[in-house]
């Protein structure tokens, strides 16, 4: 997830009311299960940038005897920016960058064994899909967990279908790459 997304996700979490950095991190990790957990340092840096850009401001600080905690709230400009971002479409695959395809081509160029690589990659994809299936079918899994696992499962499945087709067409691809 890019840092631009982190900005907007934090703005989104602030939309329901002022919050501390630590709370924002916790709520992010809850809302987006299976995502890479936000680092606390990243939350703190992003909040400072939001304040710098006028999209959020400090609500106040409290200490409760413990370490000092700063609460943040969104600004009107922040709300507008969030609305704009949430309605903006994500560019559908603007560039086709695919590590698997790159490895197949490089393997052909260097006289390697792309078929063996594709088999090993398939086994790894299947192992990850088994893990995600176990996560989403565990008793008591909440819907956010199911949906995030489904997202990854569908993408891995798409990779697998692409790999199956590619494996079946390696001879032609090898001739094409070698001729170029």
């Amino acid at each position: 997830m890019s840092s631009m997304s982190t900005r907007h996700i934090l703005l989104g979490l602030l939309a329901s009311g002022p919050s501390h950095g630590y709370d924002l991190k916790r709520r992010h990790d809850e809302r987006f299960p299976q995502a890479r957990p936000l680092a606390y340092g990243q939350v703190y840096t992003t909040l400072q940038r939001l304040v710098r850009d006028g999209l959020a401001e400090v609500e106040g600080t409290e200490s409760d005897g413990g370490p000092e905690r700063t609460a943040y709230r969104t600004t009107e400009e922040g709300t507008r920016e969030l609305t704009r971002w949430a309605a903006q479409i994500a560019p559908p695959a603007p560039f086709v960058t695919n590590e698997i395809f790159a490895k197949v081509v490089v393997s052909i160029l260097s006289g390697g064994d792309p078929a063996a690589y594709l088999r090993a990659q398939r086994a790894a994809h299947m192992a990850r899909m088994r893990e995600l299936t176990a996560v989403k079918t565990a008793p008591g899994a909440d819907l956010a967990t199911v949906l995030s696992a489904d997202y990854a499962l569908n993408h891995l499945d798409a990779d697998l279908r692409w790999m199956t087709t590619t494996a079946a067409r390696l001879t032609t691809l090898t001739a094409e790459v070698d001729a170029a």
Partner: protein
Amino acid sequence: MTNGDTTEPLLAAHQLVKAHGRTPALRGASVELRAGEILAVTGASGSGKSTLLHCLAGIVRPDGGSVTYAGQRLDRLPEKRLSELRRTDFGVVFQFGQLIPELTALDNVALPLMLAGAGRAEARARAAEWLERFGVLGQEDLRPGEMSGGQAQRAALARALVTGPKAVFADEPTGALDSLAGEQVMTALAHTAREAGTAVLLVTHDAQVAAYADREIQLRDGVVAPAEVTA
């Protein structure tokens, strides 16, 4: 085998050969299924997946090779003994069509128990428990044609599992279902099989279905494709 398990497999096929007319379907396929294991068999259309399932389930006899179940040669059993064993030890789920259209869901599920000698009342009571477990209770008096695809398939699953089989053979069990209904069927199958220690041979072309299994073998042109060792 890649996982170093030395226990005897529940079911083992060795060098199976089978042709449909002049078209070879299996050309020396070998596979082992252990007790309690869910094994996915994947591969392109025409790779021999369904034929392999039929041979392992004792539905068709191979032209060559052997099928060993719990120490006995399944491919050499007399027909009468074989169909008895299929009834007591095996359950099958196909893409569609295995429920009897004239019977209600409840009677469809009760039937295997009655064939095994249970009384009607007892069979129906146990069938109702299985339908409830798979979320089909409330539809038990409907005939298969009156149920949704997903409900009918969960009833078919109940019918395959109601006798407590040692092995279940599922051939594209979600092939006719949308993805949510398919997910419910696969979750029910996988949970029940793991709980009861039932071995499952799962034939599918769908990687998301295969991901419910413990491991996968791929068929290519009637033989098992070389496996990549995974941790």
